[in-house]
């Protein structure tokens, strides 16, 4: 097959306090592949991302990134390797303007490189160029989401993890955001891990998908096949 694994997770277990959340997760993402993770609230989707980016400790299992074990590394070391986590809810630095938000995201890059990345973000989100001097806290929800994604792109991710990029967005903006995510996928070389509750949109974009349920992988399949799966439609989409 000639597959080049970007991220490989084996038997991952994690939780909060006494509550187990992930109970033995196996996942693989290839370089330049886009994978979606869908599943109900409480399935462990966000916890999985937090575990990969080192925000919470794993209890058991292995996480490999580009043939290197990373389960023991700290958040900042994981970012340096190129794993970027864009958290849920359009998180930005509200008291800073749009461009300064982006520059913060590029703190690992050389100055010349940083400039290039800012241009790339403006190319993907032209709206942000118009708003570059506006305080991020005064932006609308959709614009904040763009800043949050742009900030993540600044550090040139090799694995870009997005948590619910469409949360709270008006239909028209949601379309725009997913069109841009599609463009990022086509134009940039990176692996993408998309967590999203709108399964239709997620499965349309990603080649492969995992269904997470109750801390376990309930299904793994080619996205098209999954959208046709009767069991999946019944349990997850309610149709």
């Amino acid at each position: 097959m000639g597959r080049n694994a970007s991220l490989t997770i084996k038997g991952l277990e994690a939780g909060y306090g006494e509550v187990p959340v992930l109970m033995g997760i196996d996942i693989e993402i290839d370089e330049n592949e886009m994978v979606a993770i869908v599943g109900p609230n409480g399935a462990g989707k966000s916890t999985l991302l937090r575990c990969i980016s080192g925000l919470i400790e794993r209890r058991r299992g292995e996480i490999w990134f580009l043939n290197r074990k990373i389960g023991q590394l700290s958040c900042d070391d994981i970012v340096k390797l190129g794993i970027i986590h864009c958290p849920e809810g359009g998180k930005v630095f509200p008291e800073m303007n749009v461009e300064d938000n982006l520059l913060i995201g590029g703190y690992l890059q050389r100055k010349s490189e940083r400039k290039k990345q800012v241009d790339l973000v403006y190319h993907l989100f032209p709206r942000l160029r118009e708003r570059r001097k506006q305080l991020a806290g005064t932006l609308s929800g959709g614009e904040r989401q763009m800043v949050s994604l742009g900030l993540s792109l600044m550090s040139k991710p090799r694995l870009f993890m997005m948590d619910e990029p469409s949360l709270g967005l008006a239909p028209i903006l949601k379309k725009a955001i997913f069109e841009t995510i599609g463009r990022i996928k086509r134009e940039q070389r990176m692996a993408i891990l998309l967590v999203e509750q709108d399964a239709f949109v997620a499965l349309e974009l990603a080649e492969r998908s995992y269904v997470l349920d109750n801390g376990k992988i309930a299904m793994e399949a080619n996205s098209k096949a999954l959208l046709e799966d009767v069991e999946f439609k019944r349990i997850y989409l309610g149709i």
Partner: protein
Amino acid sequence: MRECGSKGGILTTQGIAKHFGGLAALKDINLEIERGSITGIIGPNGSGKTTLFNVITGYLKATKGNVFYEEEKITGAKPYEIVNKGISRTFQVPQCCKLLTIRENIRLACLRTYSGETIEAKTREFAAIAKIDRHLEIEAKNVPIGFLRKTEIAMALATNPRLLLLDEPFSGLTDLECQEFSAIVKGLREKITLVVIDHKLKHLMPIVEKVHVLNEGRVFFTGSPEEVARNRDVQKIYIGGEIQ
């Protein structure tokens, strides 16, 4: 006190405006919410939907205009006074106490209305109505947004509201969870009046009778869900095409 509109209205807003510095978030909002109805409010991000809820519930002071509830002027009343009158709400970003468990959060809301042994019983009752009774012992900081939305419903019910305002209750829920939530909302509807803000039209439209579309701080269009879905201007500013 005969300033307000027809007798069918449980809530009326008259000429509400709200300015933040130079930004006019709301400009002349005139709405009437009918008693016993479910009303939807939709509109682009930044059109003023949440600001309107904040003005109605006393979290923000209107720059101009008045709010009437049950024919009484409540403009400028404090949030707790408004809760005491019978208006409750949930938040776009759930406002539970993060270090308390789900049970403790609901219990906290019950303390206002109930005492003694009824508190525990009521906590359980509202948790069951909101369908969060299986997750009561987890700390709020460790539960996903969907559970917090249900917790907020239980907390809002604990204040005994006659009018309940829900701010994006479907946000962060899967399709199946949205369907479950719709069933919860429909169940409430027999007892109270509801106003629901949401972007998920697929789930919002089937449960509401009337929809107000806000745009740039004004009521842009009002109609039945069908009329809203058919309206070309609404499609253009908000949906970006036909509704799926």
